[in-house]
């Protein structure tokens, strides 16, 4: 079930243009010539072009004819007229068919696609109109020659979603902590992720500061082509804006499949003596049957397991996302604080996110994932929180297909348990600021006994061997663990 209806969806390439798609059309005239300027088989000069200037009254008569056929004049020059009309109008008036052509999303086009007659399409323009004009040309989207200026303010989308700065803290009951003047000061939170482009105006204009370090094989501290770390780190700052944020970049800009391992990132994070380590990544330990979790931990993950256990024993709070339909390790480790998903609708109704994982581990007997929940959207995409992302990079362009934002605008609506983990990591930072002596186990106990019970919904079917999705219910339940974190309730007991 989708909680929203996107304001505009672009159809797939090759499909008919939506009837109500608005086109930008340029109209040319013959002037004194028998043919128009675009049909001359020679390059025109600034003097020869004038032979195509409309005769007195020619443009006005054509404009009136276009208006009668439903087009709206949007501009007028000496040689051309710009009009706007729908795809349906264009197809009707010019006797043609328009198809969707997807554009290269690695370029900063002003729109992700264009509607245009395909090769071989009919062309039978209105006979009266074609006597008055030379031709009509659908204008292609233009390309910005530098990354479009990114706004610190997110774009409007016409469906319910969360503003990361206002809604995410509010729904986790964080504002009373902020009113006590606790914002995470003095607490070091290390986040291990693809990278962190904190030059985005969301971070700079709100005064959020960070340090970024490189794990082995990672490159360039200032960039984040993967976009994941930049966007999800906003969740940390929304809740604990004054933490000492240490971003550990795993990504290699030159190789999207390379970069550092989580273990290397974790080892790098340890150098900086963090109080909290948060990781929105996992290994999906799924059996070959596709339905169940592995029965034992692969050897290749035992070093990471040992390192996490040692870190927790040394007093570091380690937070991992529970997965989005993944049998996520290390979230499955009993010592780790595993964070799943709860969705809050526009009317305030709470239910388990069907995007987030929930499962009982077969590797760690009796271990149930998640412990608690943060805020996560619903299937199919988890589009729920408006987050800042590097403009023109992966998430910005790919998510724009379904989230109502524009490619290149530096914003995308998404979530996943990738958002929930840093939310709760930041809550942990607030708890540690109040009581630095809290151990990881004490923090987990605090969060679980004060969480808000989630009664409705079910978790992601992909982590249910029955394929249905583990259901929420009264008390600690399979789908949401102890429930949605109540930051202030936990803080009062810290």
């Amino acid at each position, binding site marked *: 079930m989708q909680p929203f209806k996107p304001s505009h969806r672009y159809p797939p390439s090759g499909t008919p243009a939506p009837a109500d798609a608005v086109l930008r059309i340029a109209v040319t005239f013959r002037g004194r010539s028998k043919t128009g300027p675009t049909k001359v088989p020679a390059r025109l000069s600034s003097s020869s072009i004038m032979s195509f200037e409309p005769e007195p009254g020619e443009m006005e008569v054509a404009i009136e004819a276009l208006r009668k056929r439903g087009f709206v004049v949007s501009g007028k020059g000496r040689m051309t007229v710009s009009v706007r009309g729908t795809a349906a109008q264009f197809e009707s008036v010019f006797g043609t068919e328009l198809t969707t052509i997807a554009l290269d999303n690695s370029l900063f086009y002003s729109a992700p696609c264009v509607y245009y007659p395909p090769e071989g399409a009919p062309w039978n323009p209105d006979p009266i109109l074609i006597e008055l004009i030379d031709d009509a040309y659908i204008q292609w989207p233009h390309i910005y020659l530098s990354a479009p200026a990114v706004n610190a303010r997110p774009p409007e989308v016409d469906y319910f979603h969360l503003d990361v700065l206002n809604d995410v803290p509010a729904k986790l009951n964080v504002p009373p902590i902020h009113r006590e003047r606790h914002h995470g000061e003095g607490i070091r939170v290390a986040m291990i992720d693809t990278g962190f482009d904190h030059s985005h105006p969301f971070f700079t204009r709100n005064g959020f500061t960070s340090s970024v370090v490189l794990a082995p094989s990672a490159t360039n501290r200032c960039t984040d082509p993967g976009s994941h770390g930049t966007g999800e780190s906003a969740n940390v700052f929304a809740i604990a804006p004054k933490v000492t944020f240490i971003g550990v970049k795993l990504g290699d800009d030159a190789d999207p499949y390379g970069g550092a391992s989580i273990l290397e990132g974790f080892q790098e994070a*340890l150098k900086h003596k963090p109080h909290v380590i948060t990781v929105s990544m996992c290994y999906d330990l799924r059996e070959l049957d596709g339905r169940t979790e592995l029965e034992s931990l692969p050897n290749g993950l*035992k070093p990471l397991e*040992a390192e996490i256990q040692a870190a927790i024993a040394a007093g570091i709070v380690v937070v991992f996302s529970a997965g989005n339909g993944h049998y996520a390790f290390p979230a499955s480790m009993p010592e780790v604080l595993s964070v799943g998903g709860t969705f809050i609708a526009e009317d305030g109704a709470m239910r388990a996110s069907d995007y987030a994982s929930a499962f009982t581990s077969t590797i760690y007997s009796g271990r149930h994932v998640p412990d608690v929940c943060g805020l996560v959207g619903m299937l199919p995409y988890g589009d729920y929180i408006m987050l800042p992302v590097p403009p023109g990079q992966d998430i910005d362009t790919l998510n724009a297909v379904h989230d109502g934002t524009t490619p290149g605008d530096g914003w995308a609506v998404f979530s996943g348990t990738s958002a929930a983990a840093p939310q709760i990591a930041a809550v942990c930072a607030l708890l540690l600021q109040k009581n630095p002596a809290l151990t990881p186990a004490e923090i987990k106990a605090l969060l679980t006994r004060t969480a808000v019970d989630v009664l409705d919904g079910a978790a992601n079917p992909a982590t249910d061997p029955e394929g249905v999705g583990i259901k929420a219910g009264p008390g600690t339940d399979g789908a949401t663990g102890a429930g949605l974190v109540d930051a202030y309730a936990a803080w009062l007991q810290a």
Partner: protein
Amino acid sequence: MIKLQLLLRHISADPGIDPALEALLARHGMTVTGAGRASVSVQIGDAEFAQLFGPMPHLDAGFAALDMPALAVPEALAGAISQITIAPHHRATHND
């Protein structure tokens, strides 16, 4: 270069590489890239890998599949290292 993960036989109180162990690993063609309390990450060249462990298994962008077995620990390293594996690939948890 191949990324290896070395599980230490003894957990140390503080994260970081023991200089003696680092030197021992270097003599086996391994360059330390990271160290915690319980593990060490190293990189090793293809030729050095083949000499120590035999033929290179199939890797995906330098990372191993989760079901790849552990490598045999060279006798000279067995006192400090209990297991050697090739780093596995992870995934992000925002969408797939």
